[in-house]
């Protein structure tokens, strides 16, 4: 229906795109950086982290580029003083929400949250830290879930449901009390549905899900498998 070729303008550059592509996809194809955390190529987009919001000429509101399809003649701005400010504030909100202490985190140096903070030059968090008391679930023989580092991007939920087909993960509660769970909110190690495939660990952008036995800064994630798996699924 809208799969024809469209031309649009991103940050003043004319680019071509297929009509079924999103702004974020086209921007990345053209080497234009838009920050995001919940988006991951190969998983259904949810538009939740709000970091990829962009300005589109003629639109009343900022639009999440991960779910907004390109249109002919669209004029997109991915960087502005306002967008930078909002993005830094959103990152600050994430840092203040739980307990992100990079220096003692298994993902230190490999963390997407940390990486974006550096890239967007976030120097300090001026919102008060909430310091919730959250558990670390080390009941699984191979993996650890540390809720202190979770940013509720739901990549684990989606990869487990959409790619692995196990749907071990979901979100319980709501609002600031929301948390990721396995099965009936039971310890991960007791989960009946988990196949121990480890996909959730490797799509997790932070140190919330990691492999056991990793020490500080040792948990690098392998994500190359995902586009491959998605392709296998769609060709099946």
């Amino acid at each position, binding site marked *: 229906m809208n799969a024809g070729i469209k031309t649009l303008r991103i940050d003043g550059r004319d680019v071509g795109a297929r009509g079924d592509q999103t702004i974020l996809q086209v921007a990345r194809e053209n080497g234009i950086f838009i920050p995001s955390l919940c988006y991951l190529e190969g998983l259904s987009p949810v538009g939740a982290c*709000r970091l990829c919001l962009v300005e589109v000429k003629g639109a009343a509101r900022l639009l999440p580029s991960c779910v907004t399809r390109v249109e002919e003649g669209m004029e997109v701005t991915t960087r502005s003083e306002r967008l930078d400010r909002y993005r830094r504030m959103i990152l600050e909100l994430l840092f203040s*929400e739980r307990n992100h202490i990079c220096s003692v985190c298994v993902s230190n140096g490999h963390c997407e949250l940390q990486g974006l903070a550096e890239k967007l030059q976030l120097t300090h968090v001026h919102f*008060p830290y909430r310091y919730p008391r959250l558990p670390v679930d080390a009941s699984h023989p191979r993996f650890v879930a540390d809720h202190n580092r979770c940013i509720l991007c739901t990549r684990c939920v989606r990869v487990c449901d959409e790619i692995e087909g196990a749907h071990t993960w979901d979100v319980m509660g709501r609002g600031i009390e929301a948390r990721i769970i396995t099965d009936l909110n039971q310890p991960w190690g007791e989960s009946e549905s988990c196949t121990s495939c480890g996909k959730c660990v490797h799509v997790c952008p932070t140190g919330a899900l990691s492999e056991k036995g990793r020490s500080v800064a040792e948990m690098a994630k392998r994500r190359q498998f995902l586009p491959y798996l998605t392709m296998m699924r769609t060709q099946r």
Partner: protein
Amino acid sequence: MTLDELERLAAEERAAQRKTACWLHVCTAASCLSAGAAEVKQALEQELAERGMLNFCKVKGVGCMGLCSAGPLVAAQPEGFLYGRVTPDDAPDITRSLVEGRPLRRLAVPGDLPFFRRQFKIVLENAGRVDPERLEDYVAAGGYASLLKVLNEMTPQDVIREVTASGLRGRGGAGYPTGLKWSTVAKSQDREKYVVCNADEGDPGAFMDRAVLESDPHRVLEGMAIAAYATGARHGYIYVRAEYPLAVARLRAAIRQAERAGLLGNRIAGTPFSFHVEVRLGAGAFVCGEETALMASIEGRRGTPRPRPPYPAESGLWGHSTLINNVETLANVPVILREGGEWYARIGTPNSKGTKVFALAGRVLHTGLIEVPMGISLREIIFEIGGGVPEGRRFKAVQTGGPSGGCIPEEYLDTPVDYESLSALGSMMGSGGLIVMDDSTCMVDLARFFLEFSKGESCGKCVPCRVGTAHLYDLLDRILRGESDGAALAMLEELSDLLRHTSLCGLGQSAPNPVLSTLRHFRHEYEAHLEGRCVAGACRTGERR
């Protein structure tokens, strides 16, 4: 049931009702029931039976008469004498007054109160008059005639033209033009379409939809059926709060009655048009009033909103084209088709046509349910219809739009009630909660109250709303406890701006409104709290109220 049969049923019912010279209408909507209306009704029936007066006078349970603060309410018809705060012990006196043909002064509520005189009833035209539990009574009052007229005489395009001409806008709060919404769904090529009635009235302080469903459930069903015919839908859902058991029971009964009478279901009134309606219960989540969250909930999932587009008209329930209208919007529809869109468009203001139902509550003399023409001023609503602020207190502000709305101070009371004017004041029409506050209410405390609500109702999906509402609440809490300095106000404004512009759905985008509107109109109350004082004298500083 064909048009002829419907007219015959209406005539028979009217004739039967005329045989009884006198009727006692007892309000059986939730507010009066909780004040003891069921016992009053029983006592009146018993009294009439014991006196052998049942040939002369009958008791009828009816929907909301509006003046909830004076419940339980009883009206003696045809004279229209209205009695308030009736107890079962009053039954003998009331029956005696019927025989004597004089009003019972002791219980009388003056019928010429501005509360009644200043109203204009379209949505509530049957409330307090028909028995919500009997289809026949609705039919006798002209019910379902619009549906059968539409099915027999009009094309779907005709119907949409009429609704568009009426200028009706969504009564759920945002005010989207109803005719435009209908025509978008009608244009969809989807073979499976749905009509959804949003009855998830979650604003604290709003009970308009509940009153409509409890008082006149068939009107909503008729509106839905007309919407379905106009848009080409075959199935409908009413998504209603589980907290409204009486509304749910009456809706379910009404659906059964309408199906039995052939006014819902297959081949309605002998035409090829079929329409099935199901009730779906909400489960206590304010965010489900947002249309994409509502659809997720009907599908049995967590009620989290998703980005739009695609809009429900394009991809709604189970991916199919879906029309979502609120209860009050649909309740207007049968009247618009009966009287014509042009007639409706003459009521109200150029951009906000028709009437609006408000739930008037808080520090005001007469609380209850009112329906007024758009364009009436807030001052008329509060001081004439509502009778002003009681106990010699001073009016301070009126809150409209619930947790998405704002507080309006005295100097703006002459603002006409319409969508644009209220938005310009930093509030919004909302679904119709109107809460009056006097000088004993602390506006910072009120802002915290709403943020406590928004924080608790945030679905947690998007970051700004999930974390931002929690921070806003904490900031307000610390200000109220006298633990903050001027930097807190700047941070409130900064966070509010972020939420408004980056949240995923309307809940997060409008959650800062109670903060921003109180900061705008009552900044001195915040500043006083920073110094450890409460202007309203409501908060003891240094500890939580």
